[in-house]
C-alpha cells in the first residue's frame, strides 16, 4: 500500500475526504450565521438547534408522511425557515434596539428550549435515516473509495454556498440586502420594507442550517444533541474567518474541515482541539479574523 509520511495513502485521502465533508457542514452553517449577522447583527445561537431541526423534520417527513429524501431536501429547510421567521417576528425583533449580546442570550435560551423539547419527544438515542437508494454504495477512484453520498454532500453544499454568494453579491435582492446592512434607515426611505427583508434574511439563514441538517441526517444519527457541539466549532470557524465576507465564511469552513481531517491522520489526539488552537493563533496575529472587516 502506498504511504505518505508513513501514513497509508488510503487513510490520508480518506481523512481528507472526511475533513472536506465536515468542512461542508462548517461552511454551510457559518455561511448562515454570516448572512444573519450581516443584516441583524446578532449571533444566532439557535443555529445548531435549527440544524438539528432540519434533520428531524426530514426524518418526520419520511416517518409520518412517507415523503422521501429528495422532496425533504427542499421541504425541510422551508419548514425550518418558516419556524425561524415566526421566532424572529415574535421574539428576536423585540431586541434590535438593545445591545446585540441580548440577541445572543435570547437565541441561547431558544436553543435550550428546542433541544429540550426534542429530547422529551424523541429521547437521545437517535433515529436512523437511510441513505437514498440513488446514492448508496460508492465508487473506487483508484486511490481511494468514495462513498457516493459523501460526494453528494460536498457537491450540494458547494452549490448552495456559491449560489448564496451569487445571490447576495450579484442580484438586485442581494444589493438591497447589502445596502440595508450598511444603512437600514436610508434603504427604508427608498421604499423598501426593511423589517420584511430582515425577517426573510433570518428565515433564509436558518433554512441553510435546516438544509445542512437534512444533508447530515443519513450520515449521522438524527439526534436532539447533534447541533449543540457542532455549533461551538462553527463559532470558532466564524471567529477565525471573520464575518465580513460571505465567501470568506465558506472558504474558512472548508479549509478548517481539511485541516481537521489532516490532524486526524497525523496527530489524532488533537483532532478535537485543533480548530480552537488555530483560533487562538488567529486572534494573536490578526484579531479581526482572516476575512474580517472590523478590528
Amino acid at each position: 500500500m502506498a504511504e505518505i509520511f508513513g501514513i497509508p495513502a488510503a487513510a490520508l485521502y480518506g481523512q481528507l475526504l472526511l475533513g472536506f465533508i465536515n468542512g461542508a457542514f462548517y461552511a454551510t452553517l457559518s455561511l448562515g450565521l454570516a448572512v444573519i449577522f450581516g443584516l441583524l447583527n446578532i449571533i444566532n445561537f439557535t443555529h445548531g438547534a435549527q440544524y438539528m431541526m432540519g434533520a428531524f423534520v426530514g426524518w418526520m417527513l419520511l416517518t409520518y408522511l412517507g415523503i422521501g429524501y429528495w422532496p425533504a431536501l427542499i421541504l425541510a429547510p422551508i419548514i425550518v425557515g418558516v419556524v425561524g421567521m415566526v421566532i424572529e417576528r415574535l421574539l428576536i425583533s423585540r431586541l434590535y434596539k438593545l445591545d446585540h449580546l441580548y440577541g445572543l442570550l435570547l437565541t441561547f435560551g431558544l436553543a435550550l428550549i428546542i433541544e429540550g423539547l426534542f429530547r422529551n419527544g424523541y429521547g437521545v438515542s437517535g433515529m436512523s435515516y437511510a441513505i437514498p437508494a440513488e446514492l448508496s454504495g460508492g465508487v473506487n477512484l483508484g486511490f481511494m473509495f468514495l462513498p457516493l453520498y459523501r460526494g453528494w454532500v460536498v457537491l450540494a453544499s458547494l452549490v448552495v454556498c456559491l449560489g448564496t454568494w451569487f445571490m447576495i453579491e450579484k442580484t438586485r435582492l442581494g444589493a438591497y440586502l447589502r445596502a440595508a446592512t450598511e444603512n437600514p434607515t436610508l434603504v427604508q426611505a427608498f421604499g423598501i420594507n426593511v423589517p420584511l427583508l430582515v425577517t426573510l434574511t433570518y428565515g433564509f439563514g436558518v433554512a441553510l442550517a435546516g438544509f445542512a441538517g437534512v444533508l447530515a441526517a443519513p450520515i449521522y444519527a438524527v439526534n436532539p444533541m447533534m447541533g449543540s457541539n457542532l455549533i461551538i466549532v462553527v463559532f470558532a470557524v466564524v471567529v477565525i474567518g471573520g464575518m465580513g465576507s460571505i465567501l470568506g465564511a465558506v472558504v474558512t469552513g472548508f479549509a478548517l474541515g481539511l485541516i481537521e481531517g489532516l490532524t486526524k491522520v497525523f496527530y489524532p489526539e488533537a483532532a478535537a482541539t485543533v480548530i480552537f488552537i488555530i483560533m487562538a493563533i488567529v486572534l494573536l496575529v490578526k484579531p479581526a479574523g482572516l476575512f474580517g472587516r472590523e478590528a
Partner: protein
Amino acid sequence: MKLSKLLMAVSAAALLSGGAFAQDKIDVKLGVLNDRSGTYADLSGEGSVIAAQMAVEDFKAADKGINVEIVSADHQNKPDIGSSIARQWYDQDGVDVILDVPTSSVALAVADITKEKNKIFMDSGAGSSDLTGKACSPNTVHWTYDTWALANGTGSAMVKAGGDTWFFLTADYAFGHALERDTAAVVEKAGGKVLGSVRHPFPGQDFSSFLLQAQSSGAKVIGLANAGADTTNAIKQASEFGIVQGGQKLAGLLTFVTDVKALGLQTAQGLVLTEAFYWDQNEGTREFSKRFAERHGGAMPTMVHAGVYASVLHYLKAVEATKGKDATAVMAKMKEMPTDDPLFGQGEIRVDGRHVHNMYLFEVKKPEESTGDWDLYKTVATIPAAEAFRPLADGGCNLVK
C-alpha cells in the same frame, strides 16, 4: 426534595389481606436512580421502576410482612446530581437500597456515598468493572454485567468461533482505551491476533475513513470499543460500506438490545455482542418479558431491567431471611445465599460484590430470519458463569483476602 414518588399500593394490599405479620412489619424503601431522559433512558429509565415493582409483586412482599415503597429519580447522567439525590435519599428520605444507576461516573459516586452511610447499592445499569475492583465496597452489589465480562465474552467466544484476527475502532478517551485493552488481552490469550486499531475522536460522527482502514486491514472481526451514539453511528456507516456483507464481522463491545432495536435489523444484521439476558431465552424469561412488555408500552426488557428485577427479588429474600433490614446483615445474607431467579438462573454474589451468572454471545438476525418486532438475536455461545467474569483475585478489590 419532592422527587417523583411512586407510592406502591403494596401496603394497602397488605392491610386488606390482613397479614398475620401485621405486628412486626418491615418497612423498606427502594430508590431507583437512573437516567430517565438521556442516552440510557431506554435501556434503564422507567422500565427499571416497572421491573422493581414487578419483583415486589412477584415476591408477594406484603404477604410476607415486608412493606415496600419505591421511589425513583433521574440522575441525568451527571455524577453531582446523582450523588446529591443519593445523599438526600439516605439522609432524609429513609431510602434503604439504591437500584440500577447506569453511567459509571454516577455509579462510582453512589457507591462511595452508600459505603459512607452504610446502606445498600445494587447496581444493574453501569458498566465499570471498577465497582467490584479498585472501587469495591462491602455495600455494593454489581448485578448484571461489566466491561470486563463484555470484553471477555465477545473476545474469547469470537476467537473460538474462528474470528481470530481483530481490528479495533476505539473512542479516544479513558473508557474506549480500557475496553480496547481488555478485549485485546482476551483475544490474544485465546490465540487470536490484533492487526491494528484506530482511535476516533469522542464523540465521533463520521466513521467512514476509520471503517475503511478497518476494512482494508483484512481483519476478520472489527471490534467497536465505544458506546452509545458512537457505536450506533459506526454500525450504521459500516452497513453503508457493506462491511458485514464483505465477510467481516462487527463486534459491539458495549451494545444493548435497545441499540439494535433502534438501528433495525437491516442495518445491524450480523453484529455480534455479549449480553447477560435476552427476553427470548426460555420459558421463564418469556413469561416475565411478556408481562413486562404489557406494562412498558410493548417494549421488551433489557438486561438492565432484568438485573433490577432479579436484584430486588434477591434483596427481599435476604430481608425475609434476616427478618430485618440492617444493611450489614442483609449484605452478608445476600452473599451467603445462592441466587436463583427465572431470569438469570442460578448464581452467586461474590465477596467483592460481583454477581456471577452465565453470559451469552448473540448475533443479530438477518431481517428474513426475524419473525417479529423483537425477534432480534440468535444465541451463538453461552459463557458459563465460572468463566464469564473477572477472576476474584485479578480485580484488586481490598475485600478479597
